[in-house]
């Protein structure tokens, strides 16, 4: 009986410890980041290597990198997911091969993506340190997440839809466009949000692909500094950059929280809907 009590105590203690550290981290960033956070911080360019001024060009670069990553990765992953879920049997050799290779891709460390992006996009394809290189590197990185969530979403659509469409003589493509994709849309968007979340949080893969330049980018071939790289640079390489690093970290966390909540509510909405239709 004492063992039981001891275990209960330890498990509560561990959970309180974990929550405590979580709130410590969050409150630390809130307390130090909030005072500096203002409209001008979001709308101004960084001055004095980022010690003062704002983060406007950095937000623009971050959004551009994300846009490149998602515009490339989303169609590719949707096509792959549709193939895996609708056009191949689950146990086919081709399907297994693709799934296995994506599992491996999901395990590759982000710094290795950075090395690859630098060697392939920056140098081999001659894109240089640019928003395009960074975005394409991130596209490779988020591909496994996007494909897995899209595949799950498609597989969760009721099989009755496929049978009914076939009974009506609809082609597979028509059933896909008019029935399956619309039904799976919330799941697809939720997956997209997860991918964006992962991409926004990424730093190591971007340092050697999209680079450090903190000016407003003129085109996708310019180097652009992502928000996460900005936090890294301010805290490691710029003495006295901590205040702005705190505010940037707060902005990054807020962006992630918003993306995360959208993904969660969509996933919930979609679960609810499939409950009703099955």
């Amino acid at each position: 009986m004492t063992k039981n009590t001891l275990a209960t105590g330890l498990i509560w203690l561990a959970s309180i410890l974990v929550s405590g550290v979580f709130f410590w981290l969050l409150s630390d960033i809130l307390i130090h980041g909030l005072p500096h956070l203002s409209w001008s911080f979001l709308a101004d360019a960084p001055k004095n290597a980022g010690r003062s001024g704002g983060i406007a060009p950095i937000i623009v670069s971050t959004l551009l990198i994300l846009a490149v990553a998602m515009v490339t990765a989303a169609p590719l992953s949707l096509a792959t997911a549709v193939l895996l879920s609708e056009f191949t049997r689950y146990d086919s050799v081709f399907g297994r091969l693709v799934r296995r290779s994506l599992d491996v891709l999901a395990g590759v460390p982000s710094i290795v993506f950075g090395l690859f992006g630098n060697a392939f996009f920056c140098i081999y394809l001659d894109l240089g340190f640019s928003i395009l290189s960074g975005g394409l590197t991130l596209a490779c990185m988020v591909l496994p997440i996007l494909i897995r969530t899209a595949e799950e979403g498609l597989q969760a659509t009721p099989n009755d839809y496929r049978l009914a469409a076939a009974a009506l003589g609809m082609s597979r493509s028509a059933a896909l466009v008019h029935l399956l994709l619309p039904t799976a849309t919330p799941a697809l968007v939720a997956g997209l949000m997860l991918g964006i979340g992962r991409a926004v949080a990424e730093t190591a893969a971007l340092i050697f692909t999209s680079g450090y330049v903190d000016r407003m980018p003129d085109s996708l071939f310019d180097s652009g500094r992502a928000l996460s790289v900005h936090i890294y640079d301010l805290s490691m390489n710029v003495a006295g950059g901590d205040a702005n690093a705190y505010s940037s970290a707060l902005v990054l966390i807020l962006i992630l929280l918003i993306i995360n909540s959208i993904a969660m509510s969509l996933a919930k909405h979609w679960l609810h809907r499939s409950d009703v239709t099955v």
Partner: protein
Amino acid sequence: MSLSRADRQLATLLRGCALLAAAIVLLILLFLVKESWPVLRHVALIRFVSDASWHPVDGLYKLTPMLSATFYSTLGAVLLATPLGVASALFSRYYAPPFLAGCYRRLIELLAGIPSVVYGFWGLITLAPLIGNLHPPGVSLLAGILVLTLMILPTVALTADAALAAVPIAYLRGAAALGLSRWGLISGVALPAARSGIIAGIMLAAGRAIGETMAVLMVAGNVVQQPLGLFDSVRTLTANIALEMAYATGDHRAALFVSGLALMSTVLVLVGTAELLAREPHHD
């Protein structure tokens, strides 16, 4: 059911896309090997261990200080995160009242979503000075271990939670019918039944810890030296790549790609093992 012509065309297009997606991992391997080839060609692998020091510009490629830093920081983080993560999963599944369990699970998910650079920043500003008060310089192996622990804890907790959820309810009812205490039920029935899933989660977490760059780069001090204690500044394999890629050229650059290749292989072995473990049918 035969496919129409349009369907067959679509299938071909999709197959092309899937092939492209599947080929990326091969492309990554190919480019890692291509870029590290200049060094791999004329430097024997043993020299990455047996050389006198890490001075790649002078042709000295000793990677052991970085390898041991990566090893110790991962080991420490796994040793700390495993009990905390498993306890977290047990808490939300068997101990907490339903409302609290939901909140706690959400908290762990949020913890998983915090970017590594934010962990690193917080560790550098808050944790490292605290450790520095105890024993300078503060940016140390210990700081690296603690930040990594926080980062991989959600992986352990969420996979353990999923593994515990998959334990057949009949096992638990049987244990309850035998009059086992709550801890008796957990230690005698639930944990053994969920064991392979939990171990798979720990493997995945170890893979994340080895591959993590930003957090350790920011808190571990980055001195190339064999760590002798928890308070020593160390540089991990990933941090070494991040720090030196900016200016490395020629053989130096190739040596960094070699360490990238080594990282990728290690992580792949871990992920592969985790997958095998997870697939092993653990409930009859």
